[in-house]
């Protein structure tokens, strides 16, 4: 099939028919490597790079103990983000849809996570020598699902009503073993042992941080730290870096959609943005074959800044 340009067959001349001049490609490449090396090393020496230390579960517990208690309680109540997430972690919700397509649900539960059991109860079950904790775990395990949810939900409400969410200032109520479980969870996090229990309890080599990151993102502390560093989702966060370093500015278009309606207010924002970006990306790759778009540069005229008038006539 003959390629077409501006509605007619592609009349681009053979580049070999034009007058030539000497051009040293190897020299150009070597000079480019040298210049880019100087720029790279110079920028690294002058500007360095950011390294904001990771938030450990221990540092979280020390800095925001009330948030750890509230998060553990939400996991037990089944009201945390991860507990109600849907695929790939559980079936608690149908997840996001792209129009009529439930892509998230179609992905399936491939990384099963029971937030109450995996993020809170199993780590607590590994603690020994604490009779109060053992009794609380036994009480929890022997209760029915509704009873457990009732205790945890009541305690979550009480925490939310307490000044600064302080567990010590929670009003008395029927919370079952939940206050004890949440308190011991805080103690475990403070000890520094919680990360290992979430990543390498079943394997010596823990290189998968799925569970501790789900726990951390269920809390409010990580986001508060991120927002303070202009990394929030509505702050163009995905393309920013900590401090004032350039992050991933090449992701500006992806991040842009999250800042404007309908994406900024949609419960399916992620699926919609990904769907839109998939279409735009495909269009970007296929520009040479898209009528109209492939002719656009001709009319924009920017090419006249690149090619001077004398260069547009092929040799005869």
């Amino acid at each position, binding site marked *: 099939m003959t*390629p077409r*340009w501006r509605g*007619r067959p*592609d009349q*681009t*001349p*053979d*580049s*070999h*028919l*034009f*007058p030539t*001049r*000497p*051009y*040293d*490609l190897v020299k150009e*490449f070597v000079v*480019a*490597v040298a210049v*880019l090396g100087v720029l*790279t090393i110079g920028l*690294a*020496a002058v500007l360095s*790079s950011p390294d904001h230390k*990771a*938030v450990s579960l221990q540092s979280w517990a020390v800095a925001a103990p009330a948030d750890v208690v509230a998060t553990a309680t939400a996991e037990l109540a089944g009201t945390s983000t991860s507990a109600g*997430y849907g695929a790939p972690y559980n079936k608690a919700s149908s997840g996001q849809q*792209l129009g009529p397509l439930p*892509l*998230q649900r179609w*992905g399936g539960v*491939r*990384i099963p996570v029971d937030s109450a059991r995996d993020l809170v109860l199993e780590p607590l079950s590994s603690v020994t020598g604490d009779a109060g904790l053992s009794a609380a775990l036994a009480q929890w395990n022997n209760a029915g699902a509704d009873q457990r949810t009732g205790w945890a939900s009541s305690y979550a409400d009480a925490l939310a009503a307490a000044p600064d969410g302080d567990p010590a200032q929670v009003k008395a109520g029927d919370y079952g073993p939940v206050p004890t479980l949440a308190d011991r969870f805080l103690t475990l996090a403070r000890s520094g042992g919680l990360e290992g229990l979430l990543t390498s309890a079943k394997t010596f080599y823990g*290189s*998968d*941080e799925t569970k501790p*990151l789900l726990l951390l993102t269920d809390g409010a502390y990580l986001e508060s730290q991120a927002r303070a560093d202009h*990394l929030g*989702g509505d702050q163009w*966060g995905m393309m920013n*870096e*900590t401090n004032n370093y350039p992050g991933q*500015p*090449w992701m500006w278009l992806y991040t842009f959609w999250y800042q404007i309606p309908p994406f900024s207010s949609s419960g399916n924002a*992620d699926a919609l943005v*990904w769907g839109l970006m998939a279409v735009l990306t495909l269009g*970007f790759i296929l*520009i*040479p074959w898209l009528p109209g778009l*492939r*002719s656009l540069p*001709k009319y*924009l005229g920017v*090419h006249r800044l690149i*090619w001077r008038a004398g260069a*547009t*006539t*092929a*040799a005869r």
Partner: protein
Amino acid sequence: MLNRDRQQGSWTVGLRERLSRTVPPGQVLPDRQPAYVASWIYVFGVATLAAFLWIIASGTVLVLKGATWWHTSSIGHFVNSTHLWSVELFFFCMVVHLWGKFFMAAWRGRRGLTWATGAVAFIGSIGTAFTGYLSQTNFDSQWIAGQAKDGLNSVGVGAEFNVLNTGQMLLWHVMLLPLVVGVLIVLHVILVRRHGVVPPIDAELPAAPPLDAPLREPVAQREPLAPAQPDGRAGTPARPDRVTT
């Protein structure tokens, strides 16, 4: 007879001839370019390649020393800084190169695949850089992973590409994606060398020379890759005295 048998049966000869058809001798590293190749915009392609080399070099040092070395060593931090800035320069050069090629409509003259391989390499580079940010093992990694998982999960691929799994992301970053981007870059450069630098948009179509017209200089062999003309005529033989790109 022997020669024909050898050519028909030899995989080596077949491969050599295939490679020669892809990028004919003289096209791989020509020492001349069309006169219209005279703008600073042309240096951004090779500058992108140069930045890519610095990314690989600094990344190799980080690989040799381990994923968390740069947190505890001042030298490691400096190497990480060179990795970061070489990536920033790589994308800067690549984006300028990309826009330049867009404004040139550089896909003309059967160069669509050249554009497509470059575009896919750009997208692959974004993925590679993204996994790098996930592999920093610091606060930025934690936050980006927590945010990015929602996008990937929303379209059902979060389990295959689990951004919360640092081990998986690190391997994608240091092995799989650089390999893919590297192969795409090689293909892109081969296509550039095969087709030559796209002529100006307003360049006039040269008239086909008469078949008995003398060439400027005696030649031993005609250029095998001259493209067919739009009207369906046989391709105008490129003249070896002008085979430059």
